[in-house]
């Protein structure tokens, strides 16, 4: 169950200029967290900025009760978080529905029926991340590696340039095959990571997990639909409450009957079946 904790920051790093990796102590949060879930963080004490900021769970160390988040400094909230003086952090979580790995496949009802990894599916897995969207995928890959499925998993990572391929090394160390793409061509494929995905889909994998900026996810969903491959994407919407109470985070989806409607990214997502999201 989600908790509200004010806890100690155990480490803070700058893995690349403009990015921040924070580790904090929260044992029961670490225990409960699933890949794709997020925490909701208060970035200051006053009322400006007012709202919490949703940040995905990047890694957990259940033994030591530690949770990590990785984020990009894009505005006031993340800037404050990156240098919050007191060494404390105020987090709610874990929140949201994560990737459907290893759980009852709730998403399969609405989607094509193919089961995702960890639920008996035997096809190959592709994990594709762009920009800071790689943050939650790191946690997902930890779990996939833990269940011994790294051998049948391909990881595609995209970034603006080589220096921003934040999780590449960590994921390679876990034993995954990683292909990279950069917008400026400083590493791997010169172009968007969806270029790599288009190729990879030709090998008819069993399931695709994706997270990244909206235009990338839109392309991913289109490619999956074309290839007939099931998958899940983690979307970003602006959030106020993070717990399903305010209806701020409406994500347009197609329901079982094919009708368009809104679902709450904070509790019905942020991970949705690729086929459901209306872009």
């Amino acid at each position, binding site marked *: 169950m989600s908790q509200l904790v004010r806890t100690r920051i155990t480490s803070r790093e700058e893995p690349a200029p403009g990015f921040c990796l924070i580790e904090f102590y929260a044992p029961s949060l670490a225990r409960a967290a699933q890949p794709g879930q997020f925490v909701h963080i208060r970035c200051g004490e006053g009322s400006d900025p007012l709202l919490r900021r949703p940040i995905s769970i990047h890694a957990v160390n259940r033994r030591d009760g530690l949770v990590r988040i990785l984020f990009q400094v894009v505005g006031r909230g993340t800037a404050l978080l990156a240098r919050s003086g007191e060494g404390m952090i105020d987090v709610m979580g874990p929140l949201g529905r994560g990737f459907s790995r290893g759980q009852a496949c709730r998403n399969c009802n609405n989607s094509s029926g193919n089961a995702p990894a960890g639920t008996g599916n035997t096809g190959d897995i592709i994990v594709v991340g762009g920009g800071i969207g790689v943050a939650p995928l790191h946690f997902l890959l930890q779990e996939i590696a833990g269940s011994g499925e790294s051998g049948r998993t391909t990881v595609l990572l995209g970034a603006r340039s080589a220096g921003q391929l934040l999780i590449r090394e960590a994921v390679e160390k876990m034993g995954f095959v990683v292909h990279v793409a950069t917008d400026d061509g400083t590493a791997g494929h010169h172009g968007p990571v969806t270029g790599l995905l288009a190729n990879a889909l030709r090998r008819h994998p069993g399931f695709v997990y994706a997270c990244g900026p909206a235009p990338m996810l839109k392309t991913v969903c289109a490619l999956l639909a074309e290839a007939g491959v099931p998958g899940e994407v983690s979307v970003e919407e602006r959030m106020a409450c993070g717990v399903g109470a*305010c209806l701020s985070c409406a994500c347009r989806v197609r329901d079982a009957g094919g009708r368009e409607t809104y679902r709450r990214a904070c509790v019905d997502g942020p991970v949705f079946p690729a086929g459901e999201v209306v872009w």
Partner: protein
Amino acid sequence: MNLAVNLGGIKMKNPVATASGTFGFGLEYQPYIDLQRLGAIIVKGTTPSPRAGNPPPRIAETPSGMLNAIGLQNPGVDRVVEEILPRLAGLGTPVIVNIAGDTVEDYALVARKLDGAPGVVGLEVNISCPNVKKGGIQFGSDPRSAAEVTRAVKAATGLPVIVKLSPNVTDIVAMAEAVAEAGADALSMINTLLGMAIDVDRRRPVLGNVTGGLSGPAVRPVAVRAVWQVYRAVSLPILGMGGIMTARDALEFILAGATAVAVGTANFVNPRATVEVVEGIEQYMRENGFTDINELTGLAQRNVAGC
């Protein structure tokens, strides 16, 4: 120490409610607080038929505030009565349903369907939502229409009726007088201020709906002023809200004339805000030698010369 208040016939064990639209249908905050500690839960605005709501983005953060344009997304009164209210009935906390519509008949219809619904102790009539095209705002800015809606709802239900006023008017006292005259049992104020924000990079409004309602601490001075003005003109009990984050904020409303208060946007920032407000009010009363919360209502009015 007595914290109990009577809001126009609605008995609350303490003066702290949740503001409509910010607390879902009540259960979302259960992981963080004991819902029984609340004076009342006011649930999301309910309309005759289901509403999908407005296109995203639906919120924008502003200095010490936020804009929302949810657009009254709700499953419609029938599902609220059949599926949602029964789940809340067991909580032991009074539930007030916020109702809305496009026409006077809409309001009456929703009120009628909620009459006798389990656990429901009152209705809050939202005549002031700035985020729906029809209805809403007109009722909230014209005293005659506001009175008409009030009369129709009163005729449709035996439940106490709270009418929720908009701050987007020249004369909130005239609105209060009109709905009091029409039979309202209590008043709640304020709903959000009409605002907007522009995305300077994309050179277009931030919200999908263009304009939205401003809430949060930024609006508190406007809300306290509204309560102050209405308290001196109208004898109905007032449910005060707008930017309450802490017990001290809540006490501003009570001292200005509110019988009870609602906590809205603060829930998003601190999911324990409601309970902390209750505890903070208790502490204030202890430290300042008050034994009954009702002594505090309007006290600042009596401390001003010539009032």
